[in-house]
């Protein structure tokens, strides 16, 4: 009996070690950001009627990014830079603000409005580093250039047409989902002890 419980504890410790190690690795890569958090953050940035479209909605957002790029040469440069940044390594706040400014975004105004909501530019940077949105798309969104994403909807590019167009650089997001599942498991295992004690107590009271 004792051996069995020791074996169970060992399994739990292994699970905790995996959760901690995976969490640390995801944190280092900038992937430890809840998709729900990034979705609500992006939605709150733009109250445009067209609504929020994620990074994966390639056709609409690509069109947005392209329209932004046509506006100025510097914006086009930002688009290239941001693509490189998301595919290679996590962007720093300095690079991020510089690229936003280059794309014509009033960084100070954005920062002020975000801090009024209890957020900061770091939150936006985390979303960009997680690969869910590029700087160009974010700049377009902040500049209010996302009007009517649906108008350009049914024109997928040749890249987004191919079925196995997998973005391996975003694999961290898949690992994030695994991490959430494993972390929830650890929490449930830890909480199940007092819960089962309480349940037994209630059962005894009910039968008495």
């Amino acid at each position, binding site marked *: 009996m004792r051996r069995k419980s020791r074996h169970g504890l060992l399994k739990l410790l292994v699970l905790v070690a995996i959760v901690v190690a995976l969490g640390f690795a995801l944190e280092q890569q900038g992937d430890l950001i809840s998709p729900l958090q990034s979705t609500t953050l992006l939605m709150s940035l733009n109250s445009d009627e067209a609504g929020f479209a994620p990074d994966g909605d390639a056709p609409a957002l690509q069109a947005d990014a392209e329209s932004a790029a046509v506006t100025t040469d510097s914006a086009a440069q930002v688009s290239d830079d941001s693509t490189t940044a998301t595919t290679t390594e996590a962007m720093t706040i300095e690079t991020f603000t510089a690229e936003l400014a280059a794309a014509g975004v009033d960084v100070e105004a954005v920062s002020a409005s975000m801090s009024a909501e209890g957020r900061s530019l770091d939150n936006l940077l985390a979303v960009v580093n997680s690969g869910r949105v590029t700087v160009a798309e974010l700049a377009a969104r902040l500049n209010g250039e996302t009007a009517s994403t649906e108008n350009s909807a049914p024109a997928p590019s040749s890249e987004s047409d191919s079925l196995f167009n997998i973005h391996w650089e975003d*694999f961290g997001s898949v690992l994030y989902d695994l991490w*959430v*599942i494993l972390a929830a498991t650890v929490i*449930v295992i830890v909480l199940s002890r007092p819960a089962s004690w309480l349940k037994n107590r209630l059962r005894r009271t009910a039968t008495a």
Partner: protein
Amino acid sequence: MATQILTDRAEAATRTRKLNKVKINVFLDLLLTVIFMVEMEEHFTGLPLHEILGLLFAAAFSLHILLHWDWIVNVTRTFFRKLIHESRLNYVLNVALFADMLFVTVSGILISRTIGLNLQLSESLEGILRPVHMIGAELVLILVAAHVALHWKWIMTNGGKYLFGWIPKVGSK
């Protein structure tokens, strides 16, 4: 004597069938988990694969429900009968998961762009459905995490048995 042999055989056949059902469940659940994690990240797969995986997931999910149909019927019958019910939390969670999964699947089909349905929804409706589809999907992640966590013992026991059973145990003769 002959009757005894026949009964033994019938019992053995039932046992084998049950074991096979568990084995099917293990592999189906593994498939569901992998598809789910990949499917959740649209920017990883791209839209066409995301939509196809969504349909595949819906089919596998339906099969998962069919395989657990007896449990669903039994717990539904006894849900309000006992004051303290072992499976009550599990049941409530599963109902929420089913409802959310159904919503995400239907909204996903409605806003799909690459599977050739072209439902021509109005802009305003699509503008509402898309973010709600995404938030619903994030809620599915939380519910799936809780679902997996509540079945952890089963996963460890049967997953270990059927997925890693071929590995010889250290110290076994």
